[in-house]
């Protein structure tokens, strides 16, 4: 277990290194060396031998991560359809399942012997949730002499588990603070700092650390009720808030906590639940923000039509600051044309920017491992530019980063100038160990976390110390069973 956590941490570290230090812009291409290849590919770089794979109809399962948004689906279908051009005789069928049901659906398909061939994009958590189901790509990589030299060896090694080489690096999504500049201007406040380590200038001219204490102060000034009063003023009505000051990333209690500090639920022995202190502070900050300070939306408000933003509350255009991953570029245009990116605040003087990392996996139950591997190399190679832009995923290849952000910046509805450098800089503060790192009873633990997260978001007056202890005990019971 400890090894797995270290490995997860190593992944993030190495992905960061890979992003910063990758070699030339080459795309790994399958080059068959073994017998049995039957159908030559139609379009491969002239400098490389044409890969051949047995003809097969592949199924591409989505979405254990991003990929389900209605605007993404047609592009994914287009990418899947184009596979047949590169590998005549074979087809890739894109199958979309909503994220909420994706894990159950995939489990059911696997259990019934009807699993897909290709799964992705899948994050660290998705891979961990299906431990034991992934194909060891090692034999295919060797057989096809797949070029992994463009990746940092440690980044490739991250995907080496007890099952073998279960993935190849694809995309990274750092976290940033997304803010609405117009709201800061209206409140007469300086916008948050874009550079890590920069102080923030308060309205009275004092310079303070860019920390969660500062965020709380600003959030109070930026939370406004319908009569125009902010959360610091007498007569402020928390039941008629029209604009919220701050929204954390609330998809997962672990992720929410990781913005305050990297950690894992698994203690040193890998069997004992040990909730990191920074996570406890983060959860209390969130809880107090909802029920005491009223600077953060409660569960019901966050789910309401008015504030949900159709996915993330920042998209509603009614939130001044929000922490989230780079992949939220898929819907952030709805927030208006005056948003920008800023540095993640610090906690106890330390900055942590939780990181998501995506790849594609091949299920070991596939009947066509070679063709499925060809499908994998297709989405990670030939189709990667299109998919990375679609998913808002920062390419692991340095040479592709600037072009990626240039394309991303031109997305319809985006502000003219977004400081994408913040995203690149945030990688240096990636959480290590990653909050999604494997842990015992992965899915059971997530279910318990979901339950408590919902309880916190919907129930005022809780004794958070008691609740956190109850959460720890319940997870421990699940791990011990």
């Amino acid at each position, binding site marked *: 277990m400890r090894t797995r956590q270290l490995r997860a941490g190593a992944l993030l570290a190495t992905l960061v290194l890979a992003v910063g230090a990758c070699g030339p812009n080459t795309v790994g291409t399958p080059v068959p060396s073994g017998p049995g290849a039957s159908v030559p590919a139609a379009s491969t770089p002239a400098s490389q031998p044409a890969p051949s794979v047995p003809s097969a109809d592949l199924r591409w399962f989505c979405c254990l991560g991003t990929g389900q948004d209605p605007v993404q689906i047609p592009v994914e279908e287009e990418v899947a359809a184009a596979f047949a051009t590169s590998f005549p005789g074979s087809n890739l069928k894109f199958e979309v399942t909503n994220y909420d049901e994706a894990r*159950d659906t995939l*489990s059911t398909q696997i259990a019934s012997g009807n699993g897909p061939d290709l799964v992705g994009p899948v994050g660290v958590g998705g891979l961990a949730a299906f431990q034991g189901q992934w194909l060891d790509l090692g034999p295919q990589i060797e057989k096809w002499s797949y070029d992994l030299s463009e990746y940092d060896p440690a980044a490739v090694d991250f995907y080496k588990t007890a099952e073998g080489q279960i993935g190849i690096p694809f995309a990274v999504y750092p976290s940033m603070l997304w803010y609405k500049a117009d709201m800061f201007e209206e409140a007469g406040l300086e916008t948050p700092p874009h550079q890590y380590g920069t102080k923030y200038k308060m309205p009275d001219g004092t310079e303070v650390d860019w920390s969660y204490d500062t965020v709380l102060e600003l959030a109070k000034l930026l939370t406004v009720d319908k009569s125009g009063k902010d959360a610091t003023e007498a007569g402020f009505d928390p039941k008629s808030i029209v604009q919220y000051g701050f929204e954390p990333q609330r998809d997962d209690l672990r992720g929410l906590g990781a913005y305050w500090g990297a950690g894992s639920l698994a203690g040193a022995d890998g069997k004992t639940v040990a909730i990191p202190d920074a996570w406890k502070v983060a959860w209390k900050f969130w809880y107090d923000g909802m029920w005491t300070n009223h600077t953060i939306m409660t569960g019901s408000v966050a789910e309401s*039509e008015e504030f949900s933003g159709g996915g993330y509350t920042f998209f509603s255009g009614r939130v001044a600051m929000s922490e989230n991953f780079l992949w939220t570029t898929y819907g952030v245009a709805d927030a208006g044309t005056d948003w920008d990116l800023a540095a993640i605040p610090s906690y106890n003087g330390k900055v942590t920017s939780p990181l998501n990392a995506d790849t594609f996996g091949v299920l070991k139950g596939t009947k066509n491992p070679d063709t499925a591997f060809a499908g994998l190399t297709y989405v990670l190679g030939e189709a990667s530019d299109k998919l990375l832009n679609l998913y808002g995923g920062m390419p692991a290849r340095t040479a592709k980063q600037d072009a990626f952000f240039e394309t991303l910046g031109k997305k319809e509805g985006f502000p003219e100038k977004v400081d994408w450098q913040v995203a690149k800089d945030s990688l240096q503060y990636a959480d290590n160990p990653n909050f999604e790192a494997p842990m015992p009873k992965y899915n059971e633990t997530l279910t318990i976390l979901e339950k408590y997260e919902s309880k916190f978001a919907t129930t005022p007056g809780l004794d958070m110390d008691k609740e956190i202890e109850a959460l720890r005990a*319940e997870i421990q019971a699940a791990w011990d069973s």
Partner: protein
Amino acid sequence: MTPLARREARQGLLFISPWIVGFLAFTLIPMVATLLFTFLNVTLAQAEPLRFVGLDNYARLFGDPQVWQSLVVTFTFAALWLPFIVIVPFVLALALNSRHTKGKSLFRTLFFMPYVVPFVAGILAWQQMFADTGWLNDFLRFLGWKNPPAWLFDITFIYPALVILGIWGIGAGIIVNLAGLRGIPTELYDAAKIDGANSRQQLRYVTIPMMSPVIFYTIILGVVEVLQYFLVPLVLKAGTGEPGGSTFFYNLYLYKVFFNFQQMSYGATLAWLLFGITLLFTVILFRTSRRWVYYAGER
């Protein structure tokens, strides 16, 4: 057995064989298989070698807090829900059967119509109606309730919301009750009237006893249905158990153990516990039915 009887038996078995094959393939064999699973360590990944684990899975049930929490959720909801699905269709059927009610056909159609709407579509429609800006809260605001409840996000109001949603689909229950009421011989009411019984006494001493088999049937179905309550929380809250675990019903937990946690043996054990609980309640109901259910045709 005569040759004719043997031939008839053979033909009878031939005709019934499709059902027998279906019953064996889709009910009996899977049931036996799941019972065997409970003594093994079957998981989706099957990382460990398959082995006999004795009663380990049953022992685990007792130490699993989620089992008891989800049973508490299920029984809490059942206590609220069962009276409604027994009483409301009966009362509505009485109203529809009354000679004083105008437009009976129209009301019958209106009450039954939700039943023919696909259930998932109905749940999704109600999800919108329960929203803060939905019709229900708009109506409550119109009545003067300034801050109406967050139906689907408040532990206090989630069960009433589920009951309201359930009542919407009681058309079939009304039809069953109506059929029962129509089947009560009018002579009984005539006799009661001659004996001086008023409307309330006719209800107490004629209608309810004569309807007791239908009420019994409704209770049995209600108990089985509520113990298997699954689709509504799955669709309404994506199976998360929100708010705060209050919709994490037993059957949802069972489903998660099977398909999300991928623990087939433990899931099978949970399924057998559910079977046992359902059987227990059914037996209790049948035993008590001798005291309060009246069968007019019984010898």
